[in-house]
């Protein structure tokens, strides 16, 4: 550039830069115009100096006359267009901004530092914006970046005023980050600008939502002021690093939100009304999705959007695309993408739904929703914040003679929230089990339930619980061998205690325990599931603990891990049953006196014709880890059709099944419908449905109902759940007796193979037959068993018939008479006698409720035996 080779002194270089900078500033030029002028002026200086080659080195003394001639003196007289300010050449900074007046400095401190800092602290404490619009500081990285804005504004203001030189590169980088962060947040808050302005103008508040935009303006201004104050050779460096910082932080913020934005785009496509787009969207989400974003959209009504949610929402408002996804649709989508029910996944802490004033400390403990919009409904729905199971115990008795067990599950729910909550759970009963007792503790006193039609008990519950907010508990049948339990209210900072009595048969000398299919509460971290069981023979608990003699019986207790609450293969085994071929009888406490003796006999049912098995296998991801042993079980079984259910239906071989990639949650209805159509055409067909959770009904089920309703051939459909979870499809078809639960698989492959084999071969087997007698005459005392036999018989009677007519008064009356929860009847406990009366219900007498039998001491037993013998002897003397 220079026209001669003479070197320049550093002072001369600096002087020239300063003079040129001031001139450019006075001309109010920027960008390329400024650069061009700089070049022209310098070139002019070089040309002038080249004409006077009388010094070996270009010094300030040589330069100054040239500059003066050009009107570029560092302390110039007023030139043509502007008055140049003074500069200080001794420092690396100009003094141009020293004249900043005090009032503007106050405003700078307020809007650039104090306001953003206050807003950040307020948001950290109250989550005001997070609860109302979106969470601007959803992660620690966001907090640090947002905090950078007031910090950097402080440093920039100080530097402008104090002339304190700093490391240009680092300072430029951080200042750029501050501008980048504030720019992104200004953009995020831009949609609120009109409302904020209106609020400020007319209501006097709204400054908080304006603060990001104001902070950005301040950060930009301070950045520019600082740059202008720098010496010309430092300013470009500062500018370069500032730009690097700005774009880097913008890239970082975008990167942080990218998974959410990608998932939003997938959700939008997957919920499109166009089938092709929806399929592509689903595939996109199955390929990759941000779990938190997907799950958060299942809790849309709870508020607490992420930045990605907010962008999506704003996009929807300004008409870019459909962005508000209905909860019901996203919950369905969640299952289709992940293969899991949305409420089986604990929402991540960082995506919390929050309430104004909740604060971050509470937020970090968030794991459930705040507002429960399913109170008194038929679904368990989302988990509710503050509600938890505090205690759990099962007490039970096994009578090996009658091959029956009776268990009482006592549950205590706690509520740490400030509002009453409803605890809901769907419970899987033991195979062929039936709820035969329901108790609620009111003011420490146990109250027994009234049993009546489902409609009547539900109405009473909704009236007393939801409207009057008193203390009821409701148990209704939700599917084969499963019940829905609801109790409301669990009082704020209080507890509610309920007990369910369950009568169930032993299966292969095992008494399976009930377990939770789905729940709307969390479980206390340190909860232990207490189990106490007694039997007339030695028993072994799931923990491996064996019983010890207890009176004339045997008992054992154990504290089981809380995992047992959800495990289907938890059972108490009976070492040697006393089952005999002789008939057993009981005195039926619910029957009329003239037929109060219920006699049970074992009959041999001859082998039937072999059955054609149609096996339907769920294509959901839940089966991915199990398909190996399922396929192995199928290897040695004769089946007529093997159908893969993957939103559609595909008949396949076992090898093809093994090779299949299981993904997402799949609609099984089309495959079941196909299986049913096939079974209808083949006599003696049975359908075995091996599946994961089906928490939602994806397809219209009317076609299936039609096939179940019509014709005379009604093949059974056996449900074999491989993983725990709700099965709405199964529950919805609860009224059809052909819907049956398959066996609980303990030794998975062996049990499944055995079940399939027996189902297919239809071999001879023992069945129970019942009869009534007037008196015990001719029956031996050792043939007499407990009255649970009567309840079990009644439960079996209730299962008879193909289709459940929930309005059948005889069936309702029968089930209620035997105090059973069946598809016809439910149980409800209300708080007061008046409430029972008001709803036409009558609670059972506590004496009529089933109990765990007390076993007498050996000495007492001996005395009883002697007494009985004496009385018999005396009778014989007459």
């Amino acid at each position: 550039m220079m026209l001669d080779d003479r070197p320049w002194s550093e002072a001369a270089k600096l002087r020239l830069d300063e003079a040129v900078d001031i001139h450019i500033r006075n001309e109010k030029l920027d960008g390329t115009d400024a650069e061009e002028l700089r070049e022209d002026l310098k070139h002019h200086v070089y040309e002038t100096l080249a004409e006077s080659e009388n010094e070996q080195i270009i010094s300030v003394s040589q330069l100054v006359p040239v500059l003066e001639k050009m009107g570029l003196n560092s302390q110039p007289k007023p030139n043509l267009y502007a008055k140049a300010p003074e500069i200080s050449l001794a420092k690396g900074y100009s003094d141009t901004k020293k004249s900043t007046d005090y009032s503007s400095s106050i405003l700078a401190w307020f809007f650039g530092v104090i306001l953003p800092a206050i807003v950040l602290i307020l948001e950290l404490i109250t989550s005001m914006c997070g609860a109302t619009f979106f969470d601007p500081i959803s992660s620690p990285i966001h907090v640090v970046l947002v905090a950078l804005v007031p910090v950097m504004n402080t440093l920039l203001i100080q530097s402008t005023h104090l002339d304190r030189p700093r490391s240009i590169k680092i300072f430029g980088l951080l200042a750029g980050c501050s501008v980048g962060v504030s720019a992104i947040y200004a953009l995020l808050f831009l949609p609120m600008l009109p409302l904020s302005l209106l609020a400020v103008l007319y209501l006097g508040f709204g400054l908080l939502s304006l603060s990001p935009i104001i902070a950005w303006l301040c950060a930009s201004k301070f950045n520019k002021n600082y740059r202008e104050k720098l010496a010309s050779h430092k300013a470009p460096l500062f500018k370069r690093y500032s730009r690097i910082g700005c774009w880097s932080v913008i890239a970082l913020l975008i990167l942080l939100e990218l998974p959410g934005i990608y998932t939003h785009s997938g959700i939008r496509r997957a919920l499109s009304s166009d089938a092709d787009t929806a399929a592509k969207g689903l595939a996109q989400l199955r390929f990759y999705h941000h779990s938190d974003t997907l799950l958060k959209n299942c809790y849309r009504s709870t508020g607490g959007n992420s930045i990605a949610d907010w962008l999506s929402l704003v996009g929807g408002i300004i008409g870019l695309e459909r962005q508000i996804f209905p909860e019901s649709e996203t919950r369905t989508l969640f299952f289709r993408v992940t293969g899991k029910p949305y409420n089986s996944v604990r929402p991540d802490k960082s995506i919390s739904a929050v309430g104004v004033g909740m604060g971050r400390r509470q937020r970090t403990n968030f794991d459930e929703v705040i507002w429960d919009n399913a109170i008194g409904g038929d679904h368990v729905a989302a988990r509710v914040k503050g509600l938890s199971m505090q205690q759990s115990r099962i007490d039970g008795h096994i009578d090996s003679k009658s091959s029956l067990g009776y268990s009482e599950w006592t549950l205590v729910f706690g509520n740490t929230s400030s509002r009453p909550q409803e605890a809901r759970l769907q419970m899987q009963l033991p195979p062929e089990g039936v709820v035969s007792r329901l108790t609620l503790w009111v003011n420490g006193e146990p109250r027994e339930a009234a049993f009546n039609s489902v409609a009547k008990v539900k109405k009473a519950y909704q009236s007393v619980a939801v409207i009057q907010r008193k203390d009821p508990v409701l148990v209704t049948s939700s599917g084969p061998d499963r019940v829905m339990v609801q109790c409301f209210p669990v009082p704020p900072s209080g507890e509610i205690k309920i007990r369910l009595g369950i009568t169930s048969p032993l299966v292969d000398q095992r008494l399976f325990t009930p377990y939770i299919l789905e729940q709307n509460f969390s479980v206390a971290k340190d909860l232990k599931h207490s189990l106490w069981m007694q039997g007339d023979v030695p028993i072994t608990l799931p923990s491996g603990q064996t019983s010890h003699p207890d009176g004339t019986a045997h008992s054992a207790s154990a504290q089981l891990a809380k995992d047992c609450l959800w495990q289907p293969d938890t059972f108490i085994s009976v070492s040697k049953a006393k089952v005999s071929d002789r008939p057993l009888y009981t005195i039926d406490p619910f029957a009329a006196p003239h037929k109060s003796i219920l006699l049970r006999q074992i009959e041999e049912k001859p082998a039937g014709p072999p059955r054609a098995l149609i096996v339907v296998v769920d294509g959901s991801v839940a089966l991915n880890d199990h398909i190996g042993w399922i396929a192995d079980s199928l290897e040695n079984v004769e089946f007529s059709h093997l159908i893969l259910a993957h939103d559609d239906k595909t008949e396949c071989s076992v090898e093809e099944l093994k090779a299949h990639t299981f993904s997402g949650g799949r609609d099984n209805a089309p495959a079941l419908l196909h299986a049913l159509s096939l079974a209808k055409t083949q006599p003696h067909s049975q359908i075995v449905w091996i599946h994961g959770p089906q928490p939602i009904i994806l397809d219209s089920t009317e076609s299936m109902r039609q096939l179940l309703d019509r014709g005379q051939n009604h093949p059974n459909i056996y449900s074999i759940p491989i993983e725990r979870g709700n099965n709405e499809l199964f529950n919805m078809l609860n009224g059809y007796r052909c819907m049956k639960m398959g066996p609980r698989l303990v030794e998975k492959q062996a049990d499944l193979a055995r079940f399939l084999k027996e189902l297919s071969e239809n071999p001879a087997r023992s069945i129970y037959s019942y009869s009534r007698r007037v008196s015990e005459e001719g029956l031996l005392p050792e043939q007499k068993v407990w009255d649970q036999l009567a309840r079990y018989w009644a439960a079996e009677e209730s299962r008879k018939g193909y289709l459940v007519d929930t309005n059948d008064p005889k069936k309702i009356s029968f089930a209620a008479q035997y105090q059973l929860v069946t598809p016809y009847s439910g149980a409800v406990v209300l708080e007061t006698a008046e409430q029972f009366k008001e709803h036409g219900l009558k609670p059972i007498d506590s004496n009529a409720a089933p109990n765990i039998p007390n076993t007498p001491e050996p000495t007492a037993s001996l005395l009883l035996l002697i007494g009985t013998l004496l009385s018999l002897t005396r009778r014989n003397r007459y």
Partner: protein
Amino acid sequence: MDDLFDNWTLQVRKGILELCILTLLSREEMYGYELVKAVVSQPGLQVAEGSIYPLLSRLKKQSFVESYLKESDSGPARKYYKITNSGEIQAKAMQSYFSSLVGGYEALLNNTNNNDKI
């Protein structure tokens, strides 16, 4: 009094400088330094050399002049300026107006002198 004069001369020079630049460039293409020297060498104009470049920049922005780089024998490439067609038209219009302005002023001056004589 001095302030008024300073402002007045400033305004007059500002207007006339643009005319000078366009006039010089309408005669021949010149590089920056040469052009500036040519302008400031005129004794009556009394402008600082550094003031010409911003004017050139503005004229360029208004498309009245164009610049291009041309190799120089005595150093790096020089930036040459040349007038554009619109610049030519503008220069002629300015010259015409300035002539009529000066003419008008002279006529005014003559009339005043005559009146004084009468």
